[in-house]
């Protein structure tokens, strides 16, 4: 008798991992626009990047953050260890609160940025874009009473962003969600359960009203279905990397690989950045005792720094992608470069983040913009104006309870 043939995929080890939300997301990925992030199959977009972007700004949308790196640091030394690792004062962080942090090398160069969630007195969740276990272990040197657990694959998460999100979560039965303040955490039952397996933080990467939903992978689809059922009448839609990148740029948020080159992956001398250069000085707390990079950063602060990350509003409507910046219209004196650029559909402005020589900030800034028209390349010179405030920063993102959409 023939045995049924066993199907073994000889390339299984090389294929991308599938997120716990994959099944639902794949059904909606009509354009098969997949790329990857940290070993996961990951959507660039599902249907149309601009449509998804507008769901974030106009209704609500979900972004799969399962591939984000997540670590639980727990034990009596956890707080001290994190406080020594990052530039911000972690001892000020209260339970059920989240804080945005960055961490540096001894030379004060930025390794990565991320968020720390204080889940209990001695229990923290650290999230970041790139795998960081090795650096966490190194940073724990001298602290014995702690454990570091990589929960990247065992904690599923969905970012839920947009003006109607609070209403949808209310409709989903999350009692009191409207009272959750920005950067706060709360726990909720899911689909009528007696326990509270759903953790919600009022955080995000879009600069708009939004939440991040944290759940065990086995409950991921239950969460998805409950959320999409509640969101049906509120314009819910998944969004991918393309829309995320648009929204975060309007909010003025930095991205590894765009605004900064991770220090541990930088070959050329000082092609990485200090937090000061990235305008993250508000993240550096010299009032607290020793932390990684403190001496170097003190020195950098005294000495001043070469570049400053700024927000630019640029004439015309050609995105200044990869543009060089000059102090004069004739492009004789180079003073910096654009890191990210786009046409902002909601603000109707040609916006960019750019690294500019700190000394040149007071003078004129001109961008040399390249674009192509039916295969022929052209360039134009456009005036740039430095903007202080984020390009998009609606009140609803900060107000508690958020006003009705």
């Amino acid at each position, binding site marked *: 008798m023939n045995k049924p043939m066993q199907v073994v995929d000889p390339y299984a080890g090389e294929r991308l991992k599938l997120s716990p939300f994959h099944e639902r997301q794949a059904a909606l990925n009509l354009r098969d626009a997949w790329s990857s992030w940290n070993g996961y199959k990951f959507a660039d977009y599902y249907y149309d990047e601009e449509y998804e972007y507008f769901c974030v*700004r106009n209704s609500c949308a979900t972004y799969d953050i399962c591939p984000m790196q997540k670590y639980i640091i727990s034990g009596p030394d956890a707080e001290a260890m994190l406080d020594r690792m990052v530039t911000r004062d972690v001892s000020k962080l209260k339970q059920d609160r989240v804080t945005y942090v960055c961490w540096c090398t001894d030379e004060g160069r930025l390794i990565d940025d991320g968020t720390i969630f204080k889940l209990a007195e001695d229990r923290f969740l650290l999230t970041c874009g790139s795998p960081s276990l090795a650096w966490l272990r190194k940073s724990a040197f001298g602290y014995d009473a702690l454990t570091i657990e990589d929960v990247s694959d065992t904690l599923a998460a969905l970012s839920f962003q947009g003006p109607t999100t609070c209403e949808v979560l209310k409709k989903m039965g999350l009692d009191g969600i409207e009272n959750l303040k920005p950067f706060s955490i709360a726990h909720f039952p899911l689909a009528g359960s007696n326990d509270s397996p759903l953790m919600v933080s009022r955080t995000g990467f879009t600069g708009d009203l939004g939440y991040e939903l944290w759940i065990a992978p086995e409950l991921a689809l239950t969460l998805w279905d409950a959320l999409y059922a509640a969101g049906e009448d509120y314009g819910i839609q998944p969004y991918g990397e393309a829309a995320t990148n648009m929204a975060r740029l309007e909010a003025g948020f930095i991205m590894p690989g765009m605004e900064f080159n991770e220090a541990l992956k930088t070959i050329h001398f000082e092609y990485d950045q200090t937090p000061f250069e990235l305008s993250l000085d508000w993240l550096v707390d010299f009032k607290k005792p020793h932390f990684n990079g403190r001496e170097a950063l003190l020195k950098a602060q005294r000495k001043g720094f070469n570049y400053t990350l700024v927000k630019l509003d640029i004439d015309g409507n050609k995105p200044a992608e990869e543009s060089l910046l000059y102090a004069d219209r004739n492009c004789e004196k180079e003073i910096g470069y654009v890191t990210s650029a786009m046409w902002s559909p909601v603000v109707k402005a040609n916006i960019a983040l750019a690294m500019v020589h700190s000394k040149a900030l007071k003078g004129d800034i001109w961008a040399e913009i390249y674009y192509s028209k039916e295969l022929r390349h052209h360039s134009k010179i456009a005036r740039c104006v430095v903007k202080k405030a984020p390009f998009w920063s609606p009140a609803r993102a900060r107000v508690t309870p958020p006003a009705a959409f």
Partner: protein
Amino acid sequence: MKKYDAIIIGAGHNGLTNAAYLAKSGLDVLVVEKNDYIGGAAVTREMHDGWFYSSCSYVCSMMRQTIHRDLNLTKHGLVLVPYLGTVVFADNGDTMTSYNSEEAEYNQLRRRSPHDADAMFRFQTDLARYAQLIRKTLLRTPPDPTSFKPRDIRELLWLAKEFWSLGERELYEYIRFFTMSAADFLDDYFEDDLIKAAMASPGVIGTALGVYSPGSAYILLHHVMGDVDGNIGAWGLARGGMGAISNAIAGALQEHGGTIRTGAGVDKILVKNGRATGVVLDNGDELYANIVVSNMDAKRTFTQCMDKNDLPPGIYEKAKNFKIRGSSGKVNIALSGLPKFNNVADNRYINRGGQGFVGSMETMERAYDCWKHGRWSEDPFIESVIPSAWDPTVAPPGQHWMSNFVQYCPPKLADGPWTPEKRDAFGKTVIDKIERYSPGFKDLIVHAEVRTPHEIEAEIGLTEGNIFQGELTIDQLLFNRPFPGYAQYRMPIKNMYMCGSSTHPGGGVSSACGANAAREILMDLKRPNTVPEDDFYDE
């Protein structure tokens, strides 16, 4: 006695834009509006509890991005959201969907006609070429071809250069295009009737012409030359309804110190010694200003709000004969749920786009025949959108607002004046037609507002309810709009200007007429120009 620098009559979007730019240059401006609310035909009104109708105009594509950016309309609350996917319905129940992916669109057209699927690429390319040229004229004052002023000669040369850059063959085509019918134009590309009907429908919107009438090809172009964020031909919704556009411009106006007075209809424009000196309101109040700008249509301005004796000979006649024929009605419907349509997939994207009940080329033409005979179409062409499927702010969650633009509907009926009964019968014709394609539609209706040209004229002041403030045919375009010799926003009376859609570049929520007029006024007053130049994606 208070004397304003400028009084603008009518708080429609062009009047507000004009006022905002005058105020920005430091002038003391007042906008007077006959209704108790602003916006004119770009207005949002809560017509049923929780439902906010864009009572008149309902989608947006021509809004000049440069003006949006320059007046910082986003700060004043304006967010324009593009919408995707329209389904057109044939008489026999067939449907055709427009997809936003080129591949999906191609496959869809191939199912109807492989020939037409291929031809669509050439059609879109030609249309884009024509659109590109006319787009460049939107934020420019048309040159006077009989003038020897350096500025007019310069502009004429610019226009000639733009035309010549099309190349010889396309130049001929372009000239033909202005006088062609949509049907003749489309015959050069397509064989499938539903594809033709779908493409022809923008050629008659807002116009008392049929798809076989000469001149309808240009109107087709007028409807596809707009863009949303550089996607030419795309249409968008204003978050919060079309009133959000007017409200945002009003916000910019107020930021620059301008004022608006509602409930202040203008009875007469005051003229003294050949100069406009102010206005008399309906309540008899007299308001004075150095200049008066009318955002009303040309016919209303000169035949209703001015003394015939104040006008130079000929102008009154020109205004009286200005072609401003009403052709369309509007049925705004509140629905308790999202309607389902026959032969349309239960697809979260295409179910939320628009619906075009075009029927066929024959049906479109027959619908026009009714108009000619002074009746509303028995089997009308309806262009529908369900904005609430995109905009969470215009209807209660899970419930919807459907905008139905209807052609044809005459301003005057052959069998006597419009009555509420006739209006409702017209509405029933429309609802019955939709029900044919969406069984159960009637059961979803919570509230409906039926607007014939009669209602549109009474409320908005648009003569005959013509949505463009005058038809968009070559005899009334560019330097012919509204009248030859008066296309540069200056009117025959000194210190009097026009800034509405009766002027270049015509109808549509573009803000271009108001901005262009402001530029001319500031030039006459020798003040620095505050109006930006247009910028383009396709420079």
